[in-house]
């Protein structure tokens, strides 16, 4: 498809700019004046609407296709919560920071406060801040809180953060951004971080251990409380990456297990849309004695029931401009209110049931490196198919031809040829059965006609793209 810039016709104008009701001013001084108008496209509104409508049709999405992208929790995004999130469009955040302004924005402040309380209850933490703008941003904020805790205790020697080799890449990257060096602990044959190697890695220079539970293999780590205890004995804090919280809603609370800091991905567990890559929202929760290190400002509830914005002077400062991605938070709040206690428990139960069903139906054809009851996702390997020259990527591309968004492939890194499937609770058995049939068909094809898998996809506007060329050319905008 042509670019919008290639549809531009000199002199064509788009939407009408409001008329002026004031005199035209003298121009800006030459030294600060732009020399040429910005080369934006010159298109009519219909051209524009067709262009982006047709572009949208070149996407797979949850509303059009089953999207079992492991680790991303691509559940259905309820429409009523979309409507709810849009109700605050005209609310200027600066109002809340003006003297007396918090009185004017009681509704949104109540949502921030109540959502923080709900997330604290769901995760078993003392307090929550909604400021972080995505999961990775939450991780960095959480590690900054941990750094502030050690510093306040005068414990200056801790310079390492431990992560398992199966962790999300954001974990080590976030800890590094907060100034820590990374120690990576390998996965044991039983599928979790190797407990003995972890013990050996622990010492009084370790600031924190970051874990996901269930881990990225979709397995619940039975040693999780022991890991927390070992970390605490060594004076380190424990960080819970909430990417996989969907599996344990109402079943396990990280705070009860012994985690000190957690983040939650509202765009995964709490049903807010993924937006083609964002916006997300990554609130963090902390245990009691870490509350004072949370970022500033805090939304508090006064005795008269009104809400106020307060500075948080001992905290780590500000990690985003205001209170977080509010319209996303409002959707998550609405989602929690919509589903309620029982609905949220049903989420984890059905998510786990669906994933185990997928696992049971596919394990005859696909290698299952860790054959045990999984939680919300399961990880296969295409290692059997590799014997016929077919790789995980080939299976993924064939799924596209059959109308399914592929699972996550080649992650986690500790499984070769990984195929990570997370169906989520909002998919029906019938949808999963259709997906399973195509997966089984791909496995048969790998034996009988591997060439077809190598050609895939053939039904999309473009075939497999030359990524090496893209990296070499570095063409990232049009001339």
């Amino acid at each position, binding site marked *: 498809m042509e670019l919008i*810039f290639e549809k531009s016709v000199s002199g064509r104008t788009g939407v009408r700019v409001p008329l002026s009701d004031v005199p035209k001013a003298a121009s800006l001084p030459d030294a600060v004046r732009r020399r040429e108008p910005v080369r934006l496209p010159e298109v009519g509104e219909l051209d524009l609407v067709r262009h982006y409508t047709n572009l949208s049709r070149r996407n797979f999405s949850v509303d059009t296709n089953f999207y079992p992208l492991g680790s991303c929790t*691509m559940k259905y995004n309820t429409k009523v919560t979309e409507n709810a999130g849009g109700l605050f469009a*005209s609310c200027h955040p600066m109002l809340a920071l003006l003297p007396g302004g918090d009185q004017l924005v009681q509704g949104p402040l109540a949502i921030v406060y109540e959502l923080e309380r709900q997330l604290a209850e769901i995760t078993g933490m003392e307090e929550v801040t909604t400021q972080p703008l995505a999961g990775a941003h939450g991780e960095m904020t959480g590690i900054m809180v941990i750094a502030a805790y050690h510093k306040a205790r005068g414990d200056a020697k801790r310079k390492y953060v431990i992560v398992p080799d199966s962790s999300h890449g954001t974990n080590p990257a976030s*800890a590094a951004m907060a100034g820590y060096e990374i120690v990576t602990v390998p996965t044991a044959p039983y599928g979790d971080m190797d407990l003995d190697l972890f013990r050996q890695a622990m010492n009084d220079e370790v600031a924190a251990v970051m874990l996901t539970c269930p881990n990225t293999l979709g397995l619940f780590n039975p040693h999780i409380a022991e890991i927390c205890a070992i970390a605490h004995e060594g004076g380190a804090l424990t960080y819970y990456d909430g990417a996989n919280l969907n599996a344990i809603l109402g079943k*396990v609370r990280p705070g009860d297990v012994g985690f000190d800091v957690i983040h939650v991905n509202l765009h995964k567990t709490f049903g807010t849309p993924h937006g083609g890559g964002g*916006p997300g929202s990554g609130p963090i929760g902390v245990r009691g004695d870490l509350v004072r290190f949370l970022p500033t400002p805090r939304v508090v509830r006064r005795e008269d029931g009104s809400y106020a914005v307060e500075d948080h002077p001992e905290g780590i400062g500000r990690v985003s401009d205001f209170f977080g991605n509010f319209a996303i938070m409002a959707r998550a709040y609405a989602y929690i209110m919509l589903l309620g206690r029982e609905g949220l428990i049903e989420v984890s139960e059905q998510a786990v049931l669906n994933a185990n069903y997928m696992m049971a139906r596919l394990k005859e054809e696909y290698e299952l490196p860790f054959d045990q009851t999984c939680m919300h996702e399961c990880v296969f390997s295409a290692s059997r198919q590799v014997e016929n020259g077919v790789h995980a990527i080939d299976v993924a591309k064939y799924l596209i031809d059959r109308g399914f968004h592929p699972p996550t492939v080649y992650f986690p890194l500790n499984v070769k040829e990984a195929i990570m499937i997370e169906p989520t609770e909002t998919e029906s058995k019938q949808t999963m059965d259709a997906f399973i049939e195509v997966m089984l068909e791909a496995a048969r094809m790998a034996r009988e006609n591997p060439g077809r898998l190598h050609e895939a996809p053939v039904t999309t506007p473009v075939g497999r793209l030359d990524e090496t060329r893209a990296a070499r050319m570095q063409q990232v905008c049009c001339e």
Partner: protein
Amino acid sequence: MGYCPNTPDDIRDMLAAIGAASVEELFAPIPAELRAKSFELPPGMSELELMRLMREKAASCGADITPFIGGGIYDHFIPAAVDHLASRAEFYTAYTPYQPECAQGTLQALYEYQTTICRLTGMEASNASLYDGGTAVAEAALMSLRITDRHKVIVDASVNPLHREIVTGYLHGLSAQAVQVAPDGCASDLAGLMAAIDDETAAVIVQSPNFFGSVQDFRELAQKAHDHEALLIVSCYPIALGLVASPGEMGADIAVGEGQSLGNHLSFGGPYFGFIATRKRFIRNLPGRIVGETVDHQGRRGFVLTLQAREQHIKRHKATSNICSNQSLCALRGLIFCASLGKKGFEDLAQLNYDKAQYAKSVLGAVRGIDLLNSGATFNEFTLALPKDGAEVVQRLLDKGVAAGVPLGQYYPGMERALVVTVTEKRTKDEIDRLALLLEEVLWS
């Protein structure tokens, strides 16, 4: 519940396939002592009840206040097409385009977005968005540390104070230093900034227009930074770029900014998007996702995520940033906003903002006892010196339904009587005239 579709029959069949007696059995790997100690939440609601509750909350969100406030976030008009197109579920219910063949919609849109940002800022390479304006400034600071292998950035204190706080926080853990240079009145102290640059300096960070609304020429500052092999980072307000010289024209090496004003609703603080763009030679140091052009095996043009070896999912702790999810949908809104207005419309919109603010300057500056503090050019914001405490005046005007501006005392000690006033194209002449009358009344009656 309506969102978990499996029937009791489905569940029975699935459990049989799994070989489990009950759903609860699937949670057996969780040791009993680790089970949740509490889960106290209200019961669920119907859609009708939920919307009643949410409308109640939305009723108290300051919607009837006339805003003359900015501070980095601006009340601009949004063409109807932006909401309609960004509400296409094919856009908003997709995720990161890791499988490019079934994500060309998102990928091409982001490529067009990157092109738009490059053209606005006068730069050569943009990423596919960052979280917001403040974190974008912080990421630019980190980028300058990587490029120069130095540990000091100089920050003009007329940069948005909220953004400066975020920069300080980001640099803190890395043992890097942020040296603040106080403004000269309402302008950046260019001489002071230049004097602060030395061979240890990674970058100088300025903002255009600055927090007081002043627009300045940074060419000489850029030259001085480059003489010391330091970078110039300019944080800019994209609507102003329709009229004001771009960071590229000013000699900047990295341009960043808050993208909210490009077609994103105020929404009490987000989601918005941050943008970052740079010279092509620094492209490998950019944080976050980048979309690049390529071809398929038949030579058809297509778009992919590129230079991923910079990113956390490949490089882990050695990545250029930890960012994974960005603000893709907000960036898409920014793109559609710019394309809706087009070349002429965008310039006209900037001119209209400028004209209205110039009118407001003359009217408000004429109020008894009020002085204009900016000595040079401004765009759509300016700073007034009041004869009374700014916070008090603002609070009294809020009671009359007007947010008169952002009082500076809380951010700049000693400027308790100063007020930054913002006038976008949405403020009418009548609203401006009324603000003048209200100020007169509050100050003198």
